[in-house]
């Protein structure tokens, strides 16, 4: 009961805090935009083929509205790409605001639908954070009577992003814990045999015990992250372990987009006091 009360007090203090981590919010949102911008540049040469060979069929009126950018891409791909890139560039040079955030999310969501055959977890994570980040912005400022509510919603969005990251790890960790193949290490053996994922530079012959140790290390990391990240004492060490883990995914499994988006999401947990120090020293 005491812990529920203190948890509630903590949440209220987070939601109503005055000095919100604005620098971190800007860095987080803009790093998502840079990621999307880079993705579009590298996707561009393949997009024509995706549209030509695996066209998206929009069946309902609702889909036509929701995925209107796809219609534009199917008619004039270059215009569609140019438009997204211009919006992202504007968003990068102005303060994070509701309009550009919402537009970027809409474009990104449509792009993910268009490129579904090439999509992986990174698209889902990116779109989720882009959606929540619409509410992260506190610009344009609302009238004085609503300013307080605007700040609370912005703080809520930040907390929600943190919560979502934690849930992603919890879901993956729990699924692995329930899987016999992960518990025995067989899953790591399977991954090393994925022709298109595992990196032959690092191809080494391991025995069953080492496979099991690696698998359990992954399970324990994914299950401990959601808990330990909330304690300032463990925050930095768990972020460093997570960073190394995702770098491993980038190089060993050739999944740079997934590894990068997960590393970017760690901005959400950069200790807040440190940001104050950075701000006061500048």
């Amino acid at each position, binding site marked *: 009961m005491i812990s529920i009360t203190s948890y509630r007090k903590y949440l*209220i203090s987070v939601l109503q805090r005055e000095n919100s981590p604005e620098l971190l919010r800007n860095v987080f949102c803009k790093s998502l935009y840079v990621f999307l911008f880079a993705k579009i540049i590298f996707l561009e040469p393949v997009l024509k083929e995706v549209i030509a060979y695996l066209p998206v069929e929009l069946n309902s009126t609702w889909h036509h509205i929701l995925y209107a950018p796809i219609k534009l891409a199917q008619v004039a791909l270059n215009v569609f790409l140019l438009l997204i890139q211009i919006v992202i560039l504007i968003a990068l040079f102005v303060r994070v605001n509701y309009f550009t955030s919402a537009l970027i999310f809409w474009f990104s969501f449509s792009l993910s639908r268009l490129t579904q055959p*090439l999509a992986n977890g990174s698209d*889902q994570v990116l779109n989720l954070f882009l959606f929540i980040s619409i509410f992260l912005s506190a610009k344009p400022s609302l009238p004085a009577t609503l300013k307080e509510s605007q700040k*609370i*919603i912005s703080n809520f969005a930040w907390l929600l992003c943190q919560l979502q990251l934690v849930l992603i790890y919890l879901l993956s960790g729990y699924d692995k814990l329930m899987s016999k193949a992960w518990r025995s290490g*067989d899953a790591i*053996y399977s991954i090393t*045999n994925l*022709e*298109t994922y595992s990196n032959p530079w690092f191809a080494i012959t391991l025995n069953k015990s080492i496979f099991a140790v690696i698998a359990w290390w992954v399970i324990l990391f994914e299950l401990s992250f959601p808990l330990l990240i909330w304690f300032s004492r463990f925050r930095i060490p768990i972020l460093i372990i997570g960073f190394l883990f995702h770098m491993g995914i980038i190089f060993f499994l050739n999944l740079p987009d997934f590894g990068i988006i997960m590393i970017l999401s760690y901005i959400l947990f950069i200790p807040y006091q440190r940001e104050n120090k950075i701000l006061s020293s500048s």
Partner: protein
Amino acid sequence: MKQRLTTIILLLLSLHGLFSLAFIFDPPVLPPSRLATFYKVYLLPGPFFTESRIIESQSLHLSWKMKDQWQPPINTSKENYDNYRACFNPTYLFRSRLEHTFYVRILREPYASLEKKERAKEIEQLRQYLSDTYVPKEADSLRIVMIKSRAQNFKVKVDSLQMIFAR
């Protein structure tokens, strides 16, 4: 106003937390619902590297016949991966994923549940793509060998499917 909004948000946050935990642990008593689907598709990305997605690995080997001779097969998806590793240009990675999609669909099981018409469309899309992208115009036939390997219980089992098309 401030207190009311904070209370509403706390309530929403608690509800979201409860729903998320319910859909993560997914007890058998939980009936399938639209809310569960929405959560799983949009709000709870993952789980990643699930057993079903890492056990099977597929590859495609393409060769074509020119002047009465079959050319040495190429593994297009693998070549794209190798190019990515050589220069870290993600475009190769995206192309590799696109090609992978074409043949993973064809190799998926069970074939019986798939309508003949739909399967024929998928095969035609693959043939058309390979023909347009890799096969020289002078070639009169093309041969596709798709290999499905299953790495499970510390053993690898391999199965293959061959298709020959006239141009």
